[in-house]
């Protein structure tokens, strides 16, 4: 019986419908595609006229095959994408993409799951998108993270080989994230340190904003190309501005109105959190504009400073509660040491000075004044 179903689902290239046709069959009109496209365009800050092009390209595409790999992760990124409102995850997986492998969401376990992955890789050779969640440990040949008896390292290399592009979802996959935090016990690294010959889009964040995840996927599948990336490989549309510049509390910063503790009057009035360690000024992400969970809030709006989670190595930048303008290293001991050395140095230098002076005075002693007898005329 199971075989029967499997046959029923078996598919071949020749009979595959384009997305446009498939959607039309489901009663989804071109208007809907156009609307989705204009939303993607707005989300990615593309010229609004792009929406027509996106709609055209979407109509012609087959549902995009996506393979989602879970490595050293906490599943927070997968959790996050389920919170995406527009487009929603179910809209994506039912209408626009084919999520062919996802350990967190897929039905079957074990060999059947692995088979699904292989099948997708074969059918979409060179065309599938790989999403990586979690970092990859390199120490001890990668034995610190194993799935199905294979190290993440092996699986990544295998799957990446025939991929169209890789999305490093979350800070772990992008930059190593928390497993790579000091002292990086397992030698964890991000995808780009292993895969060098494929386009990689970094979508960092711990986790990333749901709409940024779905938006990036939507862009990739809509236009079939990599969006414009910044120097850290992040889509500029989402990571182009720092949070501080777009923060609704920015005017308080300008006015010099700051919360100085977490529950003072300033905090309650929504003043700027710079003094409480907010990393908004050096963190590039869309939290302040797209916000979280359907736009209800984002960390700063809820009173806690930005942790800087979309930046490489943010775990090791000193305490989350140290204001940006403060030194990361404790200066107290260093300063005391310097003070002690300075004082000692000054004492020694003074003694040397004193000694030199005495020597000079001894050598060129001021002669005793001549006791000239006055009164004796010398003319």
């Amino acid at each position, binding site marked *: 019986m*199971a075989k*029967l*179903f499997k046959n029923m689902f078996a*598919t071949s290239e020749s009979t*595959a419908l384009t997305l446009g046709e*498939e959607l039309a*069959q*489901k009663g989804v009109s071109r208007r809907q595609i156009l609307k989705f496209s204009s939303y993607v365009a707005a989300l990615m800050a593309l010229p609004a006229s792009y929406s027509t092009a996106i709609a055209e390209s979407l109509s012609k595409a087959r549902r995009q095959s996506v393979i989602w790999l879970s490595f050293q992760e*906490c*599943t927070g*990124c997968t*959790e996050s994408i*389920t*919170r*995406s*409102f527009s487009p929603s995850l*179910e809209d994506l997986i039912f209408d626009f993409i*084919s*999520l*062919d492998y996802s*350990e*967190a*969401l*897929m*039905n079957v*376990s*074990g*060999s*059947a*799951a*692995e088979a*699904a992955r292989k099948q*997708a890789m074969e059918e979409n050779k060179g065309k599938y998108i790989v999403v990586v969640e979690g970092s990859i440990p390199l120490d001890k040949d990668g*034995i*610190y*993270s*194993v*799935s*199905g*008896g294979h190290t993440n390292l092996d699986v990544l290399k295998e799957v990446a080989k025939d991929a169209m592009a890789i999305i490093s979802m979350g800070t772990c996959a992008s930059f190593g994230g*928390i*497993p790579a935090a000091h002292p990086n*016990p*397992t030698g*964890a690294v991000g995808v780009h340190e292993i895969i060098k010959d494929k386009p990689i889009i970094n979508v960092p964040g*711990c986790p990333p904003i749901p709409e940024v995840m779905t938006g990036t996927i939507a862009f990739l599948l809509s236009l079939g190309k990599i969006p414009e990336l910044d120097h850290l490989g992040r889509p500029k549309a989402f990571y182009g501005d720092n949070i501080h510049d777009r923060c609704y509390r920015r005017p308080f910063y300008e006015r010099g109105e700051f*919360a100085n503790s*977490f529950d003072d009057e300033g905090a*309650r009035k929504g003043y700027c959190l710079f003094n409480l360690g907010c990393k908004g000024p050096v963190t590039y992400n869309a*939290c302040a504009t797209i916000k979280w*969970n*359907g736009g209800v*809030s984002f960390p700063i*709006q*809820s*009173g*806690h400073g930005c942790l800087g989670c979309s930046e490489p190595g943010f775990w090791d930048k000193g*305490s*989350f*509660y140290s204001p940006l303008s403060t030194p990361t290293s404790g200066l107290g001991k260093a300063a005391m040491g310097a003070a002690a050395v300075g004082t000692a140095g000054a004492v020694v230098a003074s003694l040397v000075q004193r000694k030199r002076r005495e020597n000079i005075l001894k050598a060129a002693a001021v002669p005793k004044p001549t006791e000239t007898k006055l009164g004796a005329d010398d003319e």
Partner: protein
Amino acid sequence: MNQRVVVDPITRIEGHLRIEAETDANGKIAQAYSSGTMVRGIELILRGRDPRDAWAFAQRICGVCTLVHGLASVRAVEDALKYDIPANAQLIRNIMIGAQYVHDHVMHFYHLHALDWVDVVSALKADPAATSTLAQSISNYRNSSPGYFSDVQKRVKGLVDSGQLGIFANGFYGHPEFKLPPEANLMAVAHYLDALAWQREVVKLHAIFGGKNPHPNFLVGGMPTPISSASGGAAATSLSIVGLSQIREIIVKMQDFVNQVYVPDTIAIASFYKDWFKRGEGVGNFMTCGDFPSDGSKDKAKLLIPSGVILNRDLSHIEPLDLNDPSQVQEFVDHSWYDYEGDKKGLHPYDGQTNLNYTGPEAPYAQLDIDKEYSWLKSPRWRGKPVEVGPLARVLMLYASGHEPTKEIANATLSKLGLPIEAMFSTLGRTASRTLESKIIADQMMGWYDNLVANIKAGDLSVHNEAKWNPNDWPSEAKGVGFLEAPRGMLTHYIVIKDKKIANYQAVVPSTWNAGPRDGNGGVGPYEAALMDNHTLFDPKQPLEIQRTIHSFDPCLACAVHVSDPDGEELVQIKIQ
């Protein structure tokens, strides 16, 4: 013929878990071994850091139970520093944990567990009108019209017709263990989608209090979310009048979904699988640390969920639990890839060590050496005994301690299914406990919310205690334990602070209690024991039975299952990958 079955990876869980099991000639599981195959060393990473930062690190232990590790960490620091928090902060934490329970349990049930019981493809054969009738017969949930079910069916059909099944690919469709009629399957699939949309809405509660979900923000000494003194506009924080009323709406939404969808669905589905109330028991020992203080105090008497240990299914007696007692809580590493300095004796978490020492086979490997070390999990034991933690433990503890609402709802549910209380010691008992617990907690949430609003109206806006925020005010040495009843079970974080820095950090998480490997005496953990309780695989290539029992624990790591014969001799290797 004896067989070894490997299922790897097990999906629809968090993380990487591997279980090795051995079946006899009839396909019955004789031995099972559970192994965590991924390690990040977060405990090592935490050392030397500012204890106030620890929550953010600890929170990333898990993104599914995204909140609990952060909060356990905060509580550990607060316990170490004897740091009191304002009543409002305690109420907010209660509401947040409560929301986490309801959200997490619903998502587990529909998105991680349901596909073990529901045949998606069978839903295509359902009659939407009959489905509507079925749905209306068990609940007054609004989404129950024939048109609604027809739309869902159309959507699934579109997916199937496209030939691109995505996450539903390669399912064990048509497996005789699927017993639901097509209409029940369609209803469950519809609710799968509904729950996905619903969960998006309800986590807004976390976003309002914590800025985002997953991984909302916490703060040592209270909560970071000031109660807005401005009503709106640019100056407001998320916890304004608007935010508060939104929270209320969300709580109502949670209660409605639990009452109208989750509870009825659980009963409906369970009624087709009553044989699963007879297997998958586990170790028969249950433990809770207690949670939900009614105020800011640490008074154990004021906890909604009591703490204690139940041994050998004996609900008439509860052993007291002391987390700080080195003779009660110990972690063993006899079968774990860790090194303890000296011999491998059990260590209390304050003295715990995390020295990675992999001794397993080289990858790629077909099986682990179950006689030696075979997991990244340690084996925690209470007075040397394996115990199960989680919803079942909590419901039993509430039941045993005489909590009336629990007794009422548990008895009502069991009687509806025609089952005795003993049925709870099982795979589906575990799943049902999750449902019951969701209802109990959802009902409590509105009370906490009302108390919070009453405090605010009375002028108490305090959510954070500044008193010990400055590390200069700390003792040079301190240690503490933060405990919390996470959705998956008792969670404890142990912290040792020296000179304002973390000297040692040990998290003893629910999945360690449940999924840990054997201890030095060969004592099996709950996962292993549950699988060894009356499980016969219909088709070793489709280990649906293993999925069901493992998923009933709502695992929080990635896993694999081996099956080998009792002699340990390898027989037939089932295709793994």
